[in-house]
């Protein structure tokens, strides 16, 4: 009883504060932009929001809710009170939101600006970056990183199989508390070919095999759930390896001089980008066009090591603005890094995540 009550009281409080935010925002006609927070929102702020506010005077309100963005969108649309104007989302969530009619269908060539040489947007974005309701802005990658000080200099790990090798590379590991990526890595470390990973995971034996491989390191794993945790755990030397978003590790390497190294082998890369909540197209379309043009798209890569989704932008990526180092070798799409990359299969996870989440939870509890 108390729980339900507390939950409702909390909802009421959140709704109250949300209304407060909205009413002040509307007074100044600010744009409510939902994103992931941390170093990522910072890069968006530098590359998109600041120049936008300078040009138009419109204020951008950052809301760090992308981790539960789909839930928030659904609740807002169901309640008939949509307060978000633009949401940063993963393509898998965008597919679901699109099929549920929570977000606007986008006419890419009309809404997005062409490349400087006149190539229309639909041909300038990398394959898969433009979906019915979705515009990708970046390519990011899920990788495993390690703290170089935890291993002797002549024996540093280099492949995903090393993460599962407790004998040669002892120490705690930190992995994200979800089946996505972990099951893929377990199979690849077990010798499965990249092309067969998702076909195998669709079968009972494949899931059993992946979990059996994870069983071999289960006792040495600390599970994380927030993107900020893995760099912290690595810095504290609570773990030797940690899976992470590559931009977070880059941030720690460059801005905090942490002795981290990324294992690019079997990186699982995916896209991330904008969706427009239902009924917000008129409010959001100018900023959407601005933030996805070639110049802005390339500028973001000067603040965080995520590859731009426009080909015309990838060609003009410059140096890291705060430190001046060359961004190229830090990009997931950089040739040597990309050789053994695995694209995350959104269709597979859309179908199997309900079931595999349950199996993963049951496996964790065993």
């Amino acid at each position: 009883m108390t729980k339900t009550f507390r939950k409702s009281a909390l909802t009421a409080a959140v709704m109250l504060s949300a209304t407060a935010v909205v009413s002040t925002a509307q007074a100044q006609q600010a744009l409510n932009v939902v994103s992931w927070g941390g170093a990522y929102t910072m890069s968006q702020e530098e590359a998109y929001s600041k120049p936008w506010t300078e040009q138009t005077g419109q204020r951008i309100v950052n809301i760090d809710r992308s981790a539960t963005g789909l839930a928030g969108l659904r609740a807002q649309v169901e309640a008939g009170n949509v307060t978000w104007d633009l949401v940063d989302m993963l393509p898998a969530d965008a597919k679901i939101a699109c099929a549920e009619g929570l977000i606007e269908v986008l006419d890419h060539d009309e809404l997005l600006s062409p490349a400087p040489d006149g190539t229309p947007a639909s041909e300038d974005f990398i394959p898969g970056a433009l979906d019915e309701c979705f515009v990708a802005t970046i390519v990011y990658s899920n990788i495993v990183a390690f703290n170089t000080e935890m291993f002797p200099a002549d024996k540093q790990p280099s492949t995903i199989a090393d993460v599962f090798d407790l004998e040669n590379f002892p120490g705690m590991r930190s992995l994200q508390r979800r089946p996505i990526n972990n099951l893929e890595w377990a199979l690849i470390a077990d010798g499965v070919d990249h092309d067969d990973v998702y076909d195998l995971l669709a079968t009972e034996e494949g899931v059993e095999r992946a979990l059996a491989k994870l069983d071999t390191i289960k006792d040495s794993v600390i599970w994380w759930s927030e993107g900020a945790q893995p760099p912290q755990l690595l810095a504290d030397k609570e773990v030797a390896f940690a899976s992470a978003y590559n931009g977070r590790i880059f941030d720690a390497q460059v801005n905090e001089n942490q002795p981290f190294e990324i294992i690019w082998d079997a990186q699982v890369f995916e896209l991330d980008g904008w969706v427009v909540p239902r009924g917000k197209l008129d409010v959001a379309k100018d900023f959407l066009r601005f933030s996805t043009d070639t110049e802005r798209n390339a500028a973001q890569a000067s603040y965080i090591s995520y590859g731009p989704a426009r080909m015309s932008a990838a060609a003009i990526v410059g140096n890291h603005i705060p430190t001046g180092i060359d961004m190229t070798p830090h990009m997931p799409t950089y040739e040597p890094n990309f050789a053994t990359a695995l694209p995350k299969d959104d269709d597979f996870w859309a179908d199997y995540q309900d079931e595999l989440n349950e199996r993963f939870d049951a496996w964790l509890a065993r």
Partner: protein
Amino acid sequence: MSVSMPGSHANPSDHSDSGAQAPLVAADGRPLKVSLRRALFKNKLRAVLLVAPLMLFLLVAFIFPIFSMLTRSVESNEVRTILPTTALAIQAWEGEGLPDETVYAALAHDLKEGQRNRNLGRVASRLNYEYSGMRSTITGTARRITNVEAPESWRDTLIDAHRNWADPAVWSVIKRESRGYTLSYYLAALDMRYDADGSIVRQPESRRVYVDLMIKTLWMSILITFLCFLLGYPVAFLLASLPMRSASLLMMLVLLPFWTSLLVRTTTWIAILQSQGVLNNILVALGVIDDQSRLQMIYNETGTIVAMTHILLPFMILPLYSVMKSISPSYMRAARSMGATGFTAFRRVYFPQTVPGIGAGAILVFILAIGYYITPALVGGESGRFITNFIAYHMQVSLNWGLAAAIASLLLGLVIALYLIYNKLVGSDNLKLG
């Protein structure tokens, strides 16, 4: 209110004649009965108006959410509203083999309609909970048949679009979920499911999550309640028996943490208990443990129990204290003067009088504990998670609100059942907050 003197032979029919013959009348000339009723009504109205904000608040923040939660846990409208003609047509299918052409044609019609209205996502998600792969089956098929008009056989066209349409199990799921209500959320919450021919079976071992977790949550809440009693009873006793000045100082020590933010107290425990934390450092410095074998006291059950016992302790101490405060010391003195030892006097005279306080404190701590989720999420790691963490997960991440509602309803039912049992054993009159 002044009243005119009543006449001894009042004649109610005679209104014109005032004085001794008149009915009872108030000072303003109205009949007393009316006046009294009005006064009572005013009082009643005032009382109602005074409690109205509370009632309204309870309705909005308590009764309505619970009602909505109970509805959500059995509601299954997606097939009926988004695939309406299919839901109707499939009723004729007996579950043998594949349904006939009319059902396939109805489905094709509904899918096209849904594609136009952009609402197939809900039914796709709903059916995907029951049968993995339905999400892409529905959205993929809808996309492929948009431009198909009246083919020779819809059955072949749909099966060609996705092989799942040739699986009778898919159709029995659709038929089952077209009733408008469903038990499948409750089944999932109890680690059960429908099998291919519609009978209820247990989940395979690799997918059982919730029942064990429910039992663990229950067991840990009982343990935390017991620890609170063990630690809180002596403190409350001390508070009640110390002289006023030192008692109020001690009271501050109990209340100060109580007023501190929950998150602050929880993260403090992380700083103290983690493997590079204060406690481990002290133990290593004292040479009690080796630097290599630091104790893992957080991100497991121990962390949850320690942090939650600390956070909930005041809820045990305060009711105990106020009950103990009202026990006259003369009872103990009387027992001692009749030859009881200190322990016997405590056990036979003092302790029984504190039972109502224990009851109140225990039920407060237990109910709060079973609903906690922030603390277990932060310090519980994998083994110290509560069932409430899964409710939050299904609310925010997996978006399976029906399942979240079913687990929450079961938890609510469990708490009510335990309260009723408790009531039977201890009696609610034996519950005292002071």
